[in-house]
């Protein structure tokens, strides 16, 4: 079996920047579009009176969206090249869909942000970049689209990239790249464009195929949130007691000394089991079962880590929250359900410090509430201690969701800045 790597992308752009066309183009040029899908969109294009096959229709989902003619939810697309399998979270760019972009960015390795070459960097572009940096997407590629409409001008492209760079300097983007494209014509999407000889970089597909993502994982800090306790109660495995979970970060090996939180009991890893046999080594990302040498009382929500590298433990947490509900607002003093790793508890909003103007990055002090799509800094107090790291060090143990206890809806997404005083 060849070792194809799994890479997660998030795409965003303002309405009409050409995002759907770009995605359609990537799927089409990498031969992921099937004849029947093509026929269906040809027919739909004809019905709507467009005179070319609208590749954007390939990624248009639900009926409501078709009626309104815009994408209103995160949709997932899949395509593969011989080296990589891509999961693409297609997120709409309008400000009223900030929550969708945050959703798409939460798991992304690479963010593709589109701009229209005729319009350059807009307020929306800055917002998209801010969200990608906030959510710690490790790589951002700014795709300057519709180059065919600006005569493939290098000057236009350079001005846009300069403009974006100076804004991005205020953000925390680990790896920033640029590519001039025409999604409609196909320039620099899969094949290198003949119309822009001045561009010496790679086409978009090659960029996303070669960006190194394996090292973005945190392989240093061993964090294993216990998900489920496995006790077979069978003759064969009479005394078996294993802790199932997905390794959030770090690497685990049999023989490792470990400490279990919150109890603080120490033990040693006896074995790391899977259906396919025990492992000598298990890195972040794998779902395994850990057995310990000692019988300790451990349950779901506990964390197995190393004695000399522990997460922070606390009930007072400083966090940036994106509000995702149109039914209720985040208010200081309100209580929510919180889910962090495999642990569920309740959280009280002690304080709402400020809200971001997500386009200018200005802080708006004295914001009374957070509304749908607003992002702000809060202090939370939880009913039980959480075992957490700063989000910028660990996307798994630094993230949480807030749940409305009346409706059970997910209403907020939080990233942890650190312990609150």
């Amino acid at each position: 079996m060849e070792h194809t790597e799994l890479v997660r992308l998030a795409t965003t752009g303002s309405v009409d920047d050409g995002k759907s066309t770009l995605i359609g183009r990537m799927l089409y040029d990498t031969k992921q579009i099937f004849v029947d899908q093509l026929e269906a969109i040809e027919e739909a294009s004809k019905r709507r009176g467009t005179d070319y096959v609208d590749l954007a229709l390939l990624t248009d989902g639900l009926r409501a969206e078709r009626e309104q003619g815009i994408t209103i939810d995160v949709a997932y697309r899949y395509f593969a090249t011989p080296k990589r399998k891509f999961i693409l979270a297609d997120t709409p760019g309008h400000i009223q869909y900030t929550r969708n972009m945050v959703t798409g960015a939460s798991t992304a390795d690479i963010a593709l942000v589109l701009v229209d070459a005729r319009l350059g960097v807009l307020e929306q572009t800055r917002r998209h970049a801010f969200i990608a940096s906030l959510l710690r997407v490790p790589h951002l590629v700014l795709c300057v689209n519709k180059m065919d409409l600006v005569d493939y001008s290098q000057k236009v492209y350079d001005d846009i990239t300069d403009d974006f760079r100076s804004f991005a300097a205020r953000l925390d983007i680990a790896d920033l790249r640029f590519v001039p494209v025409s999604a409609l014509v196909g320039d620099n999407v899969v094949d290198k464009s003949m119309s822009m000889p001045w561009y010496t970089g790679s086409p978009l597909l090659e960029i996303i195929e070669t960006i190194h993502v394996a090292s973005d994982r945190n392989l240093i800090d061993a964090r294993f949130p216990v998900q489920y306790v496995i006790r077979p109660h069978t003759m064969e495995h009479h005394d078996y007691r294993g802790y199932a979970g997905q390794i959030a970060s770090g690497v685990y090996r049999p023989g490792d000394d470990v400490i279990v939180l919150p109890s603080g009991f120490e033990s040693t890893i006896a074995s790391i089991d899977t259906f396919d046999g025990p492992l000598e080594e298990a890195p972040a990302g794998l779902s395994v079962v850990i057995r310990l040498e000692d019988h300790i009382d451990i349950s779901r929500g506990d964390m197995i880590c190393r004695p000399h590298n522990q997460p922070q433990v606390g009930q007072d947490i400083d966090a940036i929250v994106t509000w995702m509900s149109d039914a209720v607002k985040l208010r200081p003093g309100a209580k929510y359900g919180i889910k962090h790793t495999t642990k569920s508890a309740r959280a009280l909003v002690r304080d709402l410090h400020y809200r971001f103007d997500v386009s200018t990055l200005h802080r708006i002090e004295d914001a009374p509430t957070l509304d749908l799509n607003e992002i702000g800094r809060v202090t939370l107090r939880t009913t039980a201690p959480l075992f957490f790291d700063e989000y910028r060090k660990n996307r798994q143990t630094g993230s949480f969701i807030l749940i409305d206890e009346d409706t059970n809806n997910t209403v907020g997404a939080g990233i942890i800045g650190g312990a609150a005083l």
Partner: protein
Amino acid sequence: MPIVSYQISHLDALEAESIHIIREAVAEAERPVLLFSGGKDSALLLRLAVKAFYPARLPFPVMHVDTGHNFPEVIAFRDATVSELGADLIVASVQVAIDEGRVTEQSGVNASRNRLQIEPLLRAIAENRFDVVFGGARRDEEKARAKERVFSFRDEFGQWDPKNQRPELWSLYNGRHRNGEHLRVFPISNWTEMDVWQYIGAEGIELPSVYFSHTRLVFERDGLLMADSDYITRLDNEEVFEATVRFRTVGDMSCTGAFASTASTVEEIIAEVSATRITERGASRADDRTAEAAMEDRKREGYF
């Protein structure tokens, strides 16, 4: 001992994600159940579920919504798989629903029991008070599925509301629900048809024989080769002939089409799938061709 490198292959990554989802759902559910049709996606799902709890036994039953129009090979496979695992099988029967007058059989040439599955499915969920129902749907199958959550909330009527889905971030899933409501959980959402076949090949997962090339009596309708059976009414001009075929998906005999193929091993199927230019559903599902939004409409009512 197998040695794991720090670089994880895409199949390992998908497997780990699916196992995480299954454990997460079970940890937070009171009465989970896994939908098992005997098709390749549900065979994959079942394998992942077994892996998730190994060495313990599967901590929940499996359920089949039996239309009564299944391929006999698939039913035999279903029964053999379930008994080998020692799992409990619940059968929700469309035929019984028809006999009891709860649903009405369609008539005519394109009659299908597809939509009729909704009633017995929701009834069985309610009767057994299942609160998590695992399904083997994949997002790459169909447009409406592309936007559905991994943990997909269903109200007390089993309805899906595409406009009001819970945001789903990182690998944090919200399984909360009240009595009478349930969650459909789709652990293989992110797998493509190709991933499924690669994994089935790598793991040596058994499948019903209809997935592999065989000869059978068929007739042609709308470009699909339909198996000749008691469950489908032929038109006068639809002549039966013998062909070497296989099925790309396995649903009802009345609405699942075959296509000419000589692929008789997983390797040959992978080669065929990589060369094909037609989607799985387009190649085999008569029911999804009826309307652009056929799947979305069914899903809103509580379909898989």
